[in-house]
């Protein structure tokens, strides 16, 4: 969608249309509303957490057109016409049920604040790099803060899913769990 769009003055509103978890939504919002607030306040999709709100912590990670982004660093107006997927949407497909179970099994969460962002970030790595190893997992998750677990259990959970998915596909894993 390439249409010119304008909210003429500071504080003025504009209409935004996008797809969220497969559903078309349309809202009038202030231009300054970022995607994470849009999801939480306009659509009541509260799995997307707002932590630092300046791009450091990764708790607000969502997918835009299939790629992970920081929900706090993207304006809702910028993703007009895009497909947004939140943890609610990913959860509903069952595509990360194994990852969620591995997080529970490994105690990869305590307070759970970072978990939605961790799951979205890890899910992308597992899709794109099935033969991933612990170093690559750490690298990919490096933009997501966890203040409870010390990360080790999270890396183990992701590594286990990588190994199990590869086993199921008949491949050879590169990682230790």
């Amino acid at each position, binding site marked *: 969608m390439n249409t*010119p769009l*304008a909210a003429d003055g*500071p504080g003025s509103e504009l209409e935004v249309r996008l797809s969220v978890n497969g559903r078309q939504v349309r809202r009038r919002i202030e*231009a300054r509303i970022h995607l994470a607030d849009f999801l939480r306040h306009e659509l009541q999709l509260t799995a997307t957490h707002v932590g630092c709100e*300046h791009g450091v912590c990764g708790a607000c*990670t969502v997918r*835009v057109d299939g790629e992970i982004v920081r929900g706090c*660093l993207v304006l809702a107006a*910028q993703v007009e016409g895009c497909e947004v997927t939140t943890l609610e949407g990913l959860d509903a497909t069952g595509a990360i049920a194994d990852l969620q179970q591995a997080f529970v099994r490994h105690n990869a969460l305590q307070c759970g604040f970072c978990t939605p962002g961790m799951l979205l*970030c890890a899910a992308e790595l597992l899709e794109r790099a099935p033969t991933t190893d612990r170093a690559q997992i750490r690298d990919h998750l490096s933009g997501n803060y966890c203040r409870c677990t010390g990360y080790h259990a999270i890396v183990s959970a992701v590594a286990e899913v990588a190994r199990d998915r590869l086993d199921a596909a008949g491949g050879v894993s590169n990682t230790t769990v």
Partner: protein
Amino acid sequence: MKPAAFAYLRPDSIPAALEALARHGPDARVLAGGQSLMPMMALRVAQPAVLVDIGRIQQLRGIHATPTSIQIGALMRHAELLGSAVVAERLPLITLALPHVAHAAIRNRGTLGGSLALADPAAEMPACALALDAVMHIAGQAGRRSVAASDFFQGLYTTAVQDGEILASVEFPAAIPGDKPFFDEVSRRRGDYAIAGLAAVRKAKHEVRLALLGCGDRPQRAPKTESLVAEALNCGQQPVRSDIRDALRADLDPPSDLQADADTRLHLAAVLVERASKSWLKGDTP
């Protein structure tokens, strides 16, 4: 925090964007990927009255290869460049440096032009542009002009792009066989801004180009250190670290801040130059 209120314009062509910038003057700021501007607005370091979102302008995208150069549209995202076979083959320094740019989610949105036009002194792409002698093509209402990387970065967050102009594309001379790129940096956390970093190339004719990041108010070449390293390598010798540090001290005047003081930065820069020299020397051994 939330950004202060602003007007939002999303022009669909370069002329429309330039017209919007002309109409709003210094009150307007260009929004590309927003991965630096959005945090600055959230922290209210930046409070533009008007945001001109250039993110949908197709003319600002694309990679065009010629026999001698690679021209990259300003809106090309870091992740797109990291996945580009043309960039990997003909601009290997960029491919080495890109994994150091922030984190995966930020590389999916952040753009090459945005990084260059912001000119953060600790950012990777400006140092690569300097090391590679890139040329920036800038669009304005008066027409296009081109500025060499050595003239483009003019100080802290300051470039040759004037109010009312847009960085449209960047042209990099393509690597030639025998060029040896090197990139490394030191940061507190993977993906954080570097305390010190080095984008470097040893050219096939044994000229050495070193561009340091995080060691000044802009990315900086280090001519004395380049001569020292080139001479040592051409004699098959590893330059001595204390000599590297003395040369860097003559070339640079690094800042002291909460992350590191000036001496630490010089030390880290010397370590990085030493690593580059070792990698080049190793490559020379048959």
